[in-house]
């Protein structure tokens, strides 16, 4: 695939955390390309840097060094306001613990990214209805999150992630707080979205769910490694 088609390109991405006098290298020279429409799983043991990578991909955090190109634009050193704008338009988040806002209804939760975008109410309503239809939660639009099961809450969270029609969906252990049945249902939903053309990057440590992806990136100690390397490192 040519360079022009890459949705995400990471070059020598490094993230170092400093605590007192200790320097922790969460990410060490990550090189990664993710094409538009690709479904990528990131897996690895706890503390390997999966979530840090996802935070940087989601512009919630910035790298210590390296380059991050999103949709052909370098985004590694944008200011807070520019990052918020790109996050709102280009990125959809799905969290392990759903992170729905308890005081807001299902509809209002889904509407939130569009509100921050300054979209007109009528358009917001149409887009939210569409997104909720897509995840099969339109009938619960007026419910509060506390009135839903875990699986239903995650479907609402997926709707919220999709509603802004982002370039990429970032899912951080989306099944981590769900039983196997609900977990499978969410994975099926993501699979369906992917078939519809969505680009998905999913962090998971469960190999069963990683198999749903087109490609799995393995991480270990802040680096991307291949499977054989994993085996030697684990030995």
């Amino acid at each position, binding site marked *: 695939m040519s360079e022009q088609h890459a949705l995400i390109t990471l070059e020598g991405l490094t993230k170092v955390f400093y605590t007192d006098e200790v320097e922790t290298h969460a990410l060490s020279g990550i090189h990664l390309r993710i094409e538009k429409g690709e479904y990528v799983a990131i897996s690895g043991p706890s503390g390997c840097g999966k979530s840090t990578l996802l935070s940087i991909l989601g512009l919630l955090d910035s790298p210590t060094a390296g380059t991050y190109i999103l949709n052909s634009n370098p985004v590694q050193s944008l200011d807070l306001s520019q990052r918020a704008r790109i*996050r*709102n338009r280009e990125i959809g988040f799905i*969290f392990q613990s759903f*992170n729905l806002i*308890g005081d807001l209804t299902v509809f209002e939760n889904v509407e939130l990214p569009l509100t921050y975008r300054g979209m007109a109410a009528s358009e917001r309503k149409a887009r939210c209805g569409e997104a909720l239809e897509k995840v099969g939660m339109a009938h619960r639009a007026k419910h509060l999150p506390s009135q839903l099961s875990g699986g239903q809450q995650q479907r609402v969270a997926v709707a919220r992630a999709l509603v*802004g029609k982002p370039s990429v969906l970032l899912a951080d252990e989306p099944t981590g707080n769900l039983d196997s049945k609900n977990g499978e249902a969410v994975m099926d939903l993501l699979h369906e979205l992917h078939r519809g053309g969505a680009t998905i990057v999913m962090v998971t440590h469960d190999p069963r769910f990683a198999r749903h992806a087109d490609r799995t990136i393995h991480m270990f100690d802040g680096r991307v490694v291949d499977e054989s390397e994993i085996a030697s490192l684990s030995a």
Partner: protein
Amino acid sequence: MNASDLVHAARRLRKSPAFAATAVGALALGVGVSSAVFSIVNGVLLRPLPFPEPDRLVMITREGDVSLPDGRDWRPAAPAFESMALFLRSWSLDLTGDGEPMRIAAAVVEPEYFRVLGATPQLGRVLVDEDDRTGAPHVAVLSHALWQSRFAGDRGVLGRSLVLSDEPATVVGVMGPEFDLFGDEADLWIAPAAATPFFAQERGSNNFDAIGRLKPDATLARAQAELLAVSRTLEAQYPRTNRGKLVVPIGLADFLTGDVRPVLLALLGAVLVVIAVSGANLASLLLARSAARREELAIRMALGAGRGRLLTQVLAEGLLLAVLGGGLGLFCAWATQDALLALAPADLPRQQAIAIDGRVFAFGATASLLLGLVFSAVPALQVIGSDPAAALQGAGRGVRPVEHRALGLVVVAEVALAFVLLAGGGLLLQSFRALSGVPLGFEPRGTLGGEFSLPRSRYGEDREKQTRTVAAMVAEARALPGVTDAAYTIAAPLDRRGGLGGTVLFQEPPPLRPAAGTGARVRLLHGDYFGTMGMRMVEGRAFDANDRAGSEPVAIVNERFARQFWGERSPLGARVAYRDFHDGTPFFMTVVGVVADVKGITLGAPDFRTIYTPYEQRRVDWQAWGNLVVRTAGDPEALRRGLQEAVWRVDPQLPLARVYTLADRVAEHSARERFSALLVLLFAGVGLVVAVQGVYAVLAFLLEERRRELGVRLALGARALDLARIVAGQGALLAFAGICLGIPLAVAAGWATTHVLFGVTWTEPFAYGAAALSLLAVALLATAVPALRAARLDPVRALRSE
């Protein structure tokens, strides 16, 4: 609750120093301020009078006081009284002999006075009946203050001879420091026969008050009936001096505190509001804390702790807070007592009874314990009442909606109560400003006055000598460096005694006949009094050197006098006379001028109808006292000594008493309003601080609780400004709701206290508007830090927080 509960509670508080300091500070502030003010209410209204069986003490009042002969006629006709005494609260005497001559305030009392009050001396004896017989040797009982200041507390003072207005008198006793019934600071007590023998037969000289002690089985109603009967008898016997004068007994405590009671009760209401604000504040802090401790309490319950046990643990924390906050508050109230009293108006009754006594301590301690225990138990019960399993599952998911609502309601209540205090303070401040801004009719700045009385022993009935002396004193005063003008007046403005009283007679009937009768005040003058006081002539001329004894008698009337008798017409040329009870023959004077009204007695009341006449033209010899007043371009305080020395150059034995600046006198007359406004504004300040603290604490707490939610919002594209707006909006909404709730409460409080306001009404929009704006402003200020913190939130950390 046992010691280990308290130890654990102390440990928990030590782990949360910010919470502990905030809660203790809020409690200390509320308890301290309310205890300090309660000590005033307690001292003035609640503490029993320092006399045996004070409930039986009664003031016997009559419009315009009573004369000695009339009062003495009451006694046999009122058997409901065990004892009764007439007394003259303040009679100025010159104390000469050893040391500088000084003018002292004597209380002229019948010997029965001490028996009525059940008062005993610290040294020697009190007055006895023999001391009040005509021709008896003059004796005096000293006040503790005079004994200390003039005689250095010498116990050998008994038997010592004093010279009081040139009359010898022997010291027979010294009273204790607490013996000061009216707060008049009398220097000594002396019998009427010694000090005012000329009043003994004068039914027209209504200068005395009366006090009585009811018999144990007598009631006030019975006493009133008896006194009514005797006043009817006297009216029939002496119609000229007793017409329409009804005698009314009033309980002594009510008499002493009656006019300050409404203000003090209003202050007590404000105290209760302060306590409620402090309670609401503590509740908000503890609600926030107990919500944060829900997980810990759930774990304790899961481990087998009973609900009672958990409640005890939470109460132990409340108890510790109560003891620390209450103790600190009471200490502050005690430490600031003197400063508070220094600000109190001089005429606040029973100031010597104001102290942090057992009742104030009990008030402060009860308030602290109630606040600490009740307000810590309520939120604790809410948490402990929940299902432990649910609480455990819910751990980490933040504040439940019900707690959210409770916290919000508490803060709204705090803001509402603070609004009541602020609006009340605003109303009182406006009332004070209105009182301070009333047109005085004279210029108080730069004027200094002093009172004197020419002793009968040396000036006797020699009117010419009296006039010469007054004129010489005015001339000496005018010659003082820096003095631009000097004059004599029998009564300066805002003198509660207000000059001489009399009935006005007209040679030709004036066009109008006011319903209020024809009484007027008469003020004798010498020198350019109107110029010295900065008073404005409205019409005609001022007195001049031609207005002397033997020349055409002249008078100047004030505007009120002219308006009430002549309306829009000019009174110039009219012939008026005044007649008092000493003088039956009318003495007509020609009105030559009209001068502007001044504030004669109080700032709130209009001037009396007043006739000014030249001192030289007075017709009686007993008008031998008055005020020497000077105007200076510089600081009048610097002239105090000079003014006394000017008098001594004329009469080395004549002291000036009560040297005063007119500016101070004006300030004294608005002191009560100033004090009330100050106290309520102090409360309002406390309310404001506490409300802001509450808003801040709750917002800061909710920010912590909402950290993850705000992180999610950031992930969804919210900007820092969006988060700051959410937090600030929440604070503004709480403040706005509080103000909306506070408005009707403040209006109701304003309406209930309208009788203590001057020149403003409870509907005054400025007070409410200013209170609302102040509260909104400080509430937004309180939201600034949490809002800023929200704006700086790190989304990665926020999303990780559990």
